[in-house]
C-alpha cells in the first residue's frame, strides 16, 4: 500500500490548490499515526524508567529527612522485594509497550512503504477482533451465569427453564448445555419432592433411600435437589458408603478417614444414586459442628457438579497410536506427550475438576497460600493414583507393545500425569481464586468454570475478569 501524497507537506498542497479536507486527513493520519505510536511508546517508557530505579527517589527521601545511605540501608533491604516487584511489573509493561508500539522505525516511517505499519495494522486489528470476540463471549457467559446462580440458589425447575429462555439464545451451544443441566436438576428436584411427600419421618426416609433401618440416631435435611443424612453410628455410615454390612479391617480404617460421601451403592434408588443422597458421619473423626459443615458443603458441591457432568469439553487434538508409530525417533516424545495429555483429559474434566471444586467450596480461605498448597498437594498426590492409575497402566502396556523404550514412556508418564497435572491443577485453582479476588462470589467463580475444561480455567478467569464490565449489575 502506498501513500501517493505522502511527501507533500500541508503547505505544498495548499499552494497546489488541493486544499480538500480529505487530502489533509490522509497526510495527517499517516504522520500522526507514526507520531502516536512513538509517543505512546516513549510515554510508557519514560514513566516506567523511574519505577525501575527507585534509588534516586529513596535518596531524595533520605536527604529530605536528614539521614544518609548507610543509615537507611536496613530499610532498603527490608523493602527490596517490594521494590523488585514494582521493577518487574514496570519492565513487563515496557516490554508490552515496545511490542505494541515500537515496531515502526523512523526510516520506514519516512518512506511511504508501509511494510511494518501494515504488519502492525493487521496485528492490531486481529487483537481488536479477538477482544471484541472475547467481549461478546464474556457477555453471553455472564448471562449464562444468571441461570447458574438460580441453580445454586435452589430455584424451582420452572424458574430455571424460564431463566434459560430469557438469558441464552436458542441454538447456541451454551443453551444446549444448560438445558441438559436443567433437565438433570428437574429430575433430582422432582425425586426429592416426591420422596418428601411420601415419607414423613426421618427413619422411614433413611430406610427407603439407604435400604436398611438405621441403628443410631439420624438427622435429615434437604436442599432443592439433594437429601442429606447425618448419622451417629459408624456402621450405619459405612454401610451406606460401601453398600455392605461387614467391612475388612482395611476398609474400616479407610472409612474412618471419610467424613461424608455422595452415596453410590446399589441399594440407593436409581434417581438418587451418585446424584442427590449425601451421608455424613458425626462420629468417625470426632468432628466439630464447623468441620461437619465444611464436609457437608464439600459433598453438596459434588452433587451440584454432577449436574454439569460431561459438559466440560476438552479441546485437545486426538493423537492416535498410528501417529506415534509412524513418527520419526526425534518426534516420538512429543507425540507420546500429546497422546497422554489427550488421555488425561477425561479424568481432569470429570474427576479432578469435581474434587477441586468440592474442596474449593468446602474450605475456608483465611490463609490463602496454605489452602492453595494444601488443595493442590492433596488433589494431585492423593487422587493421582485413583484418577489416572488405570489409564496409565493401560497406556503403558499399549506403548510397550509398540516397542517404545520403557524409559521414554516413564519419562512421559511423569511429565504428563505428575508434573503437568500439578501445574494444571495449580493454575485452575489460581483461576478460581482470581475470580473471587476480583469480586465474584465463591459460587459464581465455581459456576463460571463449570462449563470449561480444567486446563482452561486460568485463561477463562483472565478473559472474564478483563470483560467484567459486561456483567449485568
Amino acid at each position, binding site marked *: *500500500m502506498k*501513500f*501517493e*501524497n505522502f511527501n507533500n507537506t500541508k503547505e505544498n*498542497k495548499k499552494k*497546489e490548490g*488541493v486544499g*480538500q479536507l*480529505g*487530502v489533509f*486527513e*490522509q497526510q495527517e*493520519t*499517516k504522520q*500522526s*499515526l507514526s507520531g*502516536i*505510536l512513538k509517543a*505512546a511508546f516513549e*510515554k*510508557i517508557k519514560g*514513566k*516506567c524508567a523511574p*519505577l525501575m530505579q*527507585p534509588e534516586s*527517589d*529513596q535518596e531524595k*527521601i*533520605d536527604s529530605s*529527612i*536528614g*539521614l544518609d545511605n548507610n*543509615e*537507611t540501608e536496613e*530499610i*532498603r533491604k*527490608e*523493602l527490596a522485594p*517490594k*521494590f523488585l516487584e*514494582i521493577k518487574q*511489573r*514496570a519492565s513487563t*509493561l515496557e516490554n*508490552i*509497550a515496545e511490542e*505494541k*508500539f515500537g515496531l515502526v522505525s523512523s526510516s520506514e516511517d519516512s518512506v511511504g512503504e508501509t511494510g511494518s*505499519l501494515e504488519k*502492525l*495494522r493487521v496485528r*492490531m*486489528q486481529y*487483537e*481488536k477482533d479477538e477482544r471484541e470476540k472475547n467481549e461478546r463471549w464474556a457477555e453471553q457467559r455472564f448471562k449464562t451465569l444468571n441461570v447458574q446462580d438460580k441453580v445454586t440458589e435452589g430455584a424451582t425447575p420452572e424458574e430455571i427453564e424460564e431463566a434459560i429462555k430469557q438469558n441464552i439464545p436458542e441454538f447456541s451451544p451454551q443453551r444446549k448445555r444448560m438445558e441438559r443441566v436443567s433437565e438433570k436438576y428437574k429430575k433430582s428436584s422432582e425425586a426429592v419432592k416426591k420422596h418428601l411427600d411420601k415419607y414423613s419421618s426421618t427413619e422411614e426416609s433413611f430406610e427407603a433411600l439407604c435400604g436398611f433401618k438405621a441403628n443410631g440416631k439420624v438427622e435429615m435435611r434437604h436442599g432443592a435437589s439433594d437429601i442429606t443424612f447425618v448419622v451417629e453410628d459408624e456402621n450405619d455410615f459405612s454401610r451406606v458408603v460401601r453398600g455392605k454390612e461387614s467391612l475388612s479391617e482395611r476398609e474400616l480404617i479407610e472409612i474412618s478417614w471419610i467424613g461424608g460421601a455422595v452415596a453410590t451403592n446399589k441399594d440407593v434408588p436409581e434417581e438418587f444414586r451418585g446424584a442427590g443422597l449425601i451421608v455424613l458421619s458425626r462420629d468417625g473423626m470426632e468432628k466439630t459442628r464447623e468441620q461437619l459443615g465444611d464436609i457437608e458443603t464439600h459433598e453438596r458441591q459434588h452433587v451440584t457438579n454432577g449436574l454439569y457432568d460431561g459438559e466440560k469439553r476438552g479441546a485437545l487434538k486426538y493423537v492416535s497410536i498410528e501417529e506415534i508409530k509412524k513418527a520419526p525417533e526425534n518426534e516420538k516424545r512429543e507425540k507420546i506427550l500429546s497422546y497422554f495429555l489427550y488421555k488425561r483429559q477425561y479424568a481432569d474434566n470429570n474427576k479432578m475438576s469435581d474434587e477441586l471444586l468440592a474442596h474449593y467450596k468446602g474450605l475456608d480461605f483465611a490463609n490463602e497460600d496454605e489452602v492453595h498448597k494444601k488443595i493442590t498437594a492433596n488433589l494431585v498426590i492423593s487422587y493421582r493414583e485413583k484418577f489416572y492409575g488405570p489409564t496409565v497402566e493401560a497406556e503403558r502396556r499399549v506403548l510397550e507393545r509398540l516397542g517404545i523404550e520403557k524409559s521414554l514412556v516413564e519419562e512421559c508418564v511423569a511429565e504428563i500425569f505428575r508434573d503437568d497435572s500439578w501445574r494444571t491443577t495449580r493454575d485452575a485453582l489460581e483461576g478460581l481464586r482470581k475470580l473471587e479476588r476480583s469480586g465474584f462470589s465463591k459460587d459464581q467463580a465455581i459456576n463460571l468454570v463449570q462449563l470449561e475444561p480444567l486446563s482452561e480455567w486460568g485463561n477463562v478467569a483472565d478473559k472474564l475478569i478483563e470483560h467484567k464490565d459486561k456483567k449485568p449489575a
Partner: protein
Amino acid sequence: MKMDDESIKQNKENLILENVVREEEFGLNDELAELQADYEKLLLEYRTKVEEKKIEKLRGQLKHI
C-alpha cells in the same frame, strides 16, 4: 490531484488503526497508573520507616544531652 478510491480506503484504514492505537495506549495507561499508585504507596512506606528511624536517632541523641 484527486483522492482516488484506494487512497480513501487507505485513509479510512489508518483512522481505524489510529483508534486502535489510542485504545491500546489507553489500556496500558490504566495499568501504568495502577503501577505508579503502588509505587507511590511503597515510597510512602519507605518514607514512614525512614522517619521512624530518624525519630529513633533523635531520641538517642536527646538521651545523651
